């Protein structure tokens, strides 16, 4: 992507940056990683109730200690926490089943996420993306789910809706549409 690949398989490091948001965090972090010749692979960043939250995987030959040292100035003012750790290469999972989008929303109360995703796990479903938001009294969960081939989707949907109803919230499960062009 942004650096030439060496012939030897490079080492992957997971970097997390969490804390008080301000302009320039990403620019500074990625600039320091680029300075070490690291290649950014997958990353995600969002604001969680106003807190800056970023996770990324970078590949390269720099050892974790050097990455930590390079990123340390980010945390100098004490409002950001930075972690670095080596992670193994994971083979890309071949999804043999079907993909679904689950929406759950209703009045906020403890246990909504655990009760609903418990039903997903029960069915052997794998959550591949998850966002939850608390907006005023409204609690919202949107998850992308891979169900195994042969799963009884109607039964999974019914179990999820039953768990949601018990908590006084609503759930909808629908196919994740991907238009092949």
């Amino acid at each position, binding site marked *: 992507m942004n650096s030439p690949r060496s012939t030897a398989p490079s080492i992957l490091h997971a970097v997390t940056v969490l804390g008080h948001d301000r302009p320039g965090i990403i620019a500074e972090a990625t600039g320091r990683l680029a300075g070490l010749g690291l290649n950014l692979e997958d990353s995600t960043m969002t*604001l969680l109730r106003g807190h800056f939250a970023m996770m990324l995987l970078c590949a390269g030959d720099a050892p974790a200690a050097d990455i930590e040292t390079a990123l340390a100035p980010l945390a100098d003012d004490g409002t950001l926490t930075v972690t670095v750790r080596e992670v193994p290469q994971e083979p890309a999972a071949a999804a043999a089943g079907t993909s679904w*989008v689950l*929406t759950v*929303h*209703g*009045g*906020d109360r403890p246990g909504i996420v655990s009760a609903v995703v418990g039903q997903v796990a029960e069915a052997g479903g794998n959550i591949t*993306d*998850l*966002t939850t*938001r608390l*907006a*005023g*009294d*409204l*609690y*919202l969960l*949107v*998850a*992308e789910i891979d169900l195994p081939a042969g799963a009884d989707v109607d039964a999974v949907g019914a179990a999820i809706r039953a768990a949601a109803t018990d908590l006084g*919230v*609503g759930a*909808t499960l*629908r196919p*994740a*549409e991907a*238009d092949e*062009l």
Partner: protein
Amino acid sequence: MSHPSDQQGQQGGQQPGTGGVHERVLAWSETELGVEGRVLEVVRAPAAVLSAVGERVDPTSPETVQLAADLVATMRVSPGCVGLAAPQVGVGAQVFCVDVSEHPKTRDHHGTFVLCNAEVVASSRNEKAREGCMSVPDLTGDVKRASRIVVRGQLPGTGEEVELHANAFEARCLQHEIDHCQGLLFVDRVAGAHAIFARQTYL
């Protein structure tokens, strides 16, 4: 290119969105209702009424006529509001109003109108766009909806059945309001886990 959802409801060779503007609906205005609309409070999720399927209504009944007038009056005083459904004012009924005439994303439109017991009878040309909702004020989300639809419903007051072709932003707005009447919010249709956003600007 062919999407299964594009074929939905298109039996009989009807081409949604190519039928031109429905003159009767375009000519309709809330003054026909003959009653003064009241501004009602807009309810917010997680109010139960927003997640319940609305009752079908008698479009000629005095209650429906008053509700239609109230919906238009409430829409008018709400900045940026291009549509409002009965569940959003706490009434579990299949009635909504729309007016997209001032919106920049509008192509063709029918001005201000109210429909009762409306349903989408044909749809095609899905497009994704970011939606917000007065009943979910803090969030927006990317939703894929048809950009050409045929909607059937009844006008309040006379109870006339109309079938109109809508496109672009009016089509999106109609689907959003019809969803409200069926107990669905845009968050029930967001494209995925990374398609929900905290609202950046409030109108």
